[in-house]
């Protein structure tokens, strides 16, 4: 299984843009895993509670990406486990001790009307009836789900006051000159079910509202991300 992930990473690296002459760039690639497997269509995964599920959709926003002490970039990326899962940002050759980013987008974007690009409501990450972007969206099917058709939907959103679901993630990097040009970040879905809080599909099969439960789920984001490797 490990080899499979490595192989995937190699393919992604070769497909991403290489460093342009004279301009340092860093490729950031999200490797989405569950149950020690790469997340792919129609595959089965098991969480810590023995619940077996399939994943049909997995998307989340990444913004304010910052390497070391550099200023965060203004770009907002929509990571799609079944689509575009990486991006390229400018980088310096100095030692980069960490990478940090926000999962979700700043509250300003939630209140400023119609947006474009990754924030276009066409991307199916916008709640119209209760204005705001979804931070993290996971959809699939699980035998243990009591919802109709055994659906499992985790739409984690909410941006105002105590409903905030955006979380800042800081991941330490090796304290050495950045000779690499790609950082692979693992998003481990196992930690979504078994993190600071315990979430089971049977108990919360469908979570599509901002509020207490969404905040609870968002608290688990911090444990889901780790540096897989640099390349």
């Amino acid at each position, binding site marked *: 299984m490990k080899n499979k992930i490595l192989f995937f990473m190699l393919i992604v690296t070769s497909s991403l843009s290489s460093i342009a002459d004279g301009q340092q760039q860093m490729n950031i690639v999200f490797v989405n895993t569950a149950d020690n497997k790469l997340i792919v269509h129609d595959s089965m995964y098991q969480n810590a509670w023995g619940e077996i599920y399939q994943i049909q959709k997995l998307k989340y926003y990444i913004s304010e990406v910052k390497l070391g002490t550099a200023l965060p970039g203004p770009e907002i990326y929509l990571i799609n486990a079944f689509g575009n899962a990486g991006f390229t940002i400018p980088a310096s050759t100095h030692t980069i001790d960490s990478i940090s980013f926000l999962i979700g987008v700043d509250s300003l974007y939630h*209140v*400023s009307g119609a947006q474009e690009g990754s924030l276009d409501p066409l991307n199916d990450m916008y709640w*119209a*009836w209760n*204005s705001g972007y979804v931070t993290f969206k996971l959809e699939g099917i699980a035998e243990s789900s009591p919802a109709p058709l055994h659906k499992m939907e985790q739409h984690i959103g909410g941006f105002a006051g105590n409903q905030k679901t955006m979380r800042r993630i800081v991941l330490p990097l090796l304290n050495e000159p950045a000779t690499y040009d790609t950082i692979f970040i693992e998003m481990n879905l196992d930690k979504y079910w078994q993190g600071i809080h315990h979430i089971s599909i049977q108990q919360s099969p469908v979570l599509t509202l901002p509020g207490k439960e969404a905040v609870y789920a968002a608290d688990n984001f911090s444990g889901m991300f780790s540096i897989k490797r640099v390349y």
Partner: protein
Amino acid sequence: MKRNLKILILAGILFICLGMNLLIENASPPQPIEFKIPKGWPKPPTDIFVKNKLTEQGFQLGKKLFYDARLSKDGEISCASCHQYFAAFSTFEHDLSHGVNNSFTNRNAPALFNLAWKTSFHWDGGVNHIEVQALNPLLAPNEMGETLEGVLRKLKKDSSYRRLFKDAFVTEGISSQRMLKALAQFTGSLLSANSRYDKMKRGEIQFTAAEQKGYALYQLHCSGCHTEPLFTDESFRNNGIGLNRFKDVGRMDITHLSSDSLKFKVPSLRNVQLSPPYMHDGSIGYITKVLEHYRTGIDTTSAILDPLLKKKIHLTDRQRDELLYFLFALTDTSFTKSKRFGPDEKYIFKH
């Protein structure tokens, strides 16, 4: 000689072609229009036209979209189907409105005017910006029932829309953002500020004795929520309607706070004469019955009732009628008969 003539004709044709090309290339840039705030009115809480520059071309595109039923899934329902200009952009004499496939909405379609002053949209205030409001009726299965992809596909296919989007936004391209911004230019421009009340305020007319007395009664009993000059304070309140058959808890759906249970947005009293039935679910059919509700219909002992309504409103029948005359003085027929806001062509309302 013949040859010369031929060359001359060819040159002429070329000249005309070039000229036409230039005309197309140099299509006039979007023409800015000013959104005038009526004298004595507060400034809107945020200027909705700062990041969405109001232009004649943008307004006209928004208007075309507003009146275009093709935007709905079955091509039968436009924004204007439920927001009818002659009813101050509410659904005339409908408690609930009709969506695609003979569906019904769960709430009464609010009248649309003076939207530039609103701090939130919908009866529950769930929508925080005028530009994103339109996503709701477009996508709701019991309203226009479309998908965003579907709407954009139809617009992109239509050469007149391709031209109008370019006219409004300079460059080619139809996007959800442009569509929503154009719609907001039209809806945000719907200004109603020319009722008898406004004329009285401007010193152009004098109120009748009954209107004057009604005005005083309004100030005593209604102005706590329906604040001048917009005649709403934009707050959410429980006015004693109670839980309806849809189990609609209003604001609580958005905030999840039990203290917001059964609270709904205070609607403006402007043009109230034209927008029956009343309340969030259209459950009160006539304006006189609304006044009766406030006079005798409320259970003032209810723990969750708005504090301002806990003190019973005492009105004699005569006073009730005087108040009614004042409410009629808030009707702005120059708004409902405005050619600028009404449909360009004869528009058939199917409901």
